């Protein structure tokens, strides 16, 4: 367990080296936040829509802008790259569980982006626009929900990367993952704006667990326990699936020598 904590710390430090990139990313988040806020205010400004008034819509936009970096919504292809080059063999023969190790590192990365990419945009939104703060009781639930969002996001990214064990070039799958996640997670428009049937379909996928669920928990929309339950369910399913996939992949690498 200690070694995983070390890995998390290393992840934190690794990302803190890319300051320029972090600040550029923050500026990008804020820029999109401003654009999205304008559109959302135009939508809900006259009358609340589907439970969103202006302060709630502003909070929705800026939390989304912050969370997308925290959960690394656009994906990462580092593991896929290591699989393609064959370097992954080194990773597989280390005395760790690769999935757990990568998750530990991701927690470190997320920890760093919490300070640079999640909190600052939320503060910018709160300073510039009417902003809804959560009820006191919602804070700890939001923290849990954000962490579960990270687990689900990591679980999806791990599975997508792992396809590289079987596909020569997994970039197609990766780009599909990015598109599907950003479409169905509730980033563009709150999922409650969708027609009821579409909401049912969307909530049957893991994607809302990444952005919409933590925001719902924060805004105390709907029973918070259903959002958290949805997240927990997918966190477990994806983690187990990742474990099984990794097992098969290891067998493949060991038998076929990569």
């Amino acid at each position, binding site marked *: 367990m200690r070694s995983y904590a070390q890995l998390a710390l290393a992840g934190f430090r690794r990302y803190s080296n*890319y300051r*320029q*990139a972090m*600040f*550029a*990313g923050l*500026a*990008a988040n804020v*820029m*999109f936040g*401003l*654009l*999205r806020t*304008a*559109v959302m205010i*135009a*939508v809900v400004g*006259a009358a609340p*829509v*589907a439970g969103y008034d202006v302060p709630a819509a502003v909070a929705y936009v800026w939390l989304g802008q912050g969370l997308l970096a925290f959960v690394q919504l656009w994906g990462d292809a580092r593991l896929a790259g290591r699989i393609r080059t064959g370097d992954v063999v080194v990773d597989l023969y280390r005395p760790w569980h690769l999935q757990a190790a990568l998750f530990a590192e991701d927690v470190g990365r997320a920890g760093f982006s919490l300070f640079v990419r999640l909190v600052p945009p939320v503060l910018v939104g709160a300073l510039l626009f009417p902003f809804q703060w959560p009820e006191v009781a919602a804070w700890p639930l939001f923290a849990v929900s954000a962490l579960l969002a990270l687990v689900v996001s990591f679980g999806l990214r791990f599975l997508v990367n792992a396809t590289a064990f079987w*596909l*020569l*070039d*997994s*970039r*197609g*799958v990766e*780009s*599909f993952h*990015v*598109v599907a996640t*950003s*479409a169905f997670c509730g980033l*563009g*428009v709150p999922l409650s*704006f*969708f*027609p009821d049937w579409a909401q049912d379909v969307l909530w049957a996928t893991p994607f809302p667990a990444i952005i919409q669920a933590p925001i719902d928990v924060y805004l105390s929309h709907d029973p918070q326990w259903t959002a958290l339950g949805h997240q927990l369910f997918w966190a477990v399913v994806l983690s187990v699936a990742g474990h099984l996939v990794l097992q098969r992949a290891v067998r493949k690498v060991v038998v076929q020598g990569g």
Partner: protein
Amino acid sequence: MGDRIYPKLVAARLRGQMSYRVSFALECLGQAFAQAIELVVILVVFSRVDALGGFSASEVVLLYAFAGTAFGIADLVAGQLNELPDYIRTGKFDVLLLRPLGTLPQVMASDVRLRRAGRVAAGIITMAFALTHNDIAWSPWTVLLVVVTPLAGAVIFSAVWIVACAVSFWLVEAQELANAVTHGSNSFTSYPITVYSGWLRRFMAFVVPGAFVAYYPGLALLGRADPLGGPAFLGWIAPLVALAAACVAGLVWRFAVRHYRGTGS
């Protein structure tokens, strides 16, 4: 550009890409899908409200289609500039400097991401839909406007792309900043500029001349007056704005490369 060098470079890139067929097809589809998703967002919004910034659903879809098509073309032509930080880091840019051609066209032709064609296709289909669902007074002039607008928009977006990416010569790690400007201007132009306000509108509509990608030509096509009081001729000058933007981009690029060769790595 009079000779056949650039077509040759582009053709070479296409041959290279075709060696990964499945991935190519998936990415092409993914791009079309991505473009469609943004349309879904607009439609979902309009399932809850009747107007946005004073514009109806079919009008906003028209603006979005103009913007999306123009952005798709620009991505096809100028999207390779996203690789510039990598070129600078690995010294590939130096290799370009060792050839008897300009660096900007070389970078732009260094890869043609044909998969972005998916985005253009989705944009054109949406445009066809929007054109048939709006009340447009068809004349040779409006037809010309429909053809020219996405092209002028593509030039404007490409210019924005060049300027944004030229920042890499100073800040090698700041690619996301460039993305914010390029993709941000795409998002901005997909909605009527009446939705925005203050300095954000002034900056994105006129400094980055985003208002000329879809908004003003769209007004002219729909025969609507500008709710913000802009004169009617603004709808017809997008090609001039595009030309000016391209000149500025060329100058900025020259300045940036001069800085690179002066400061180096």
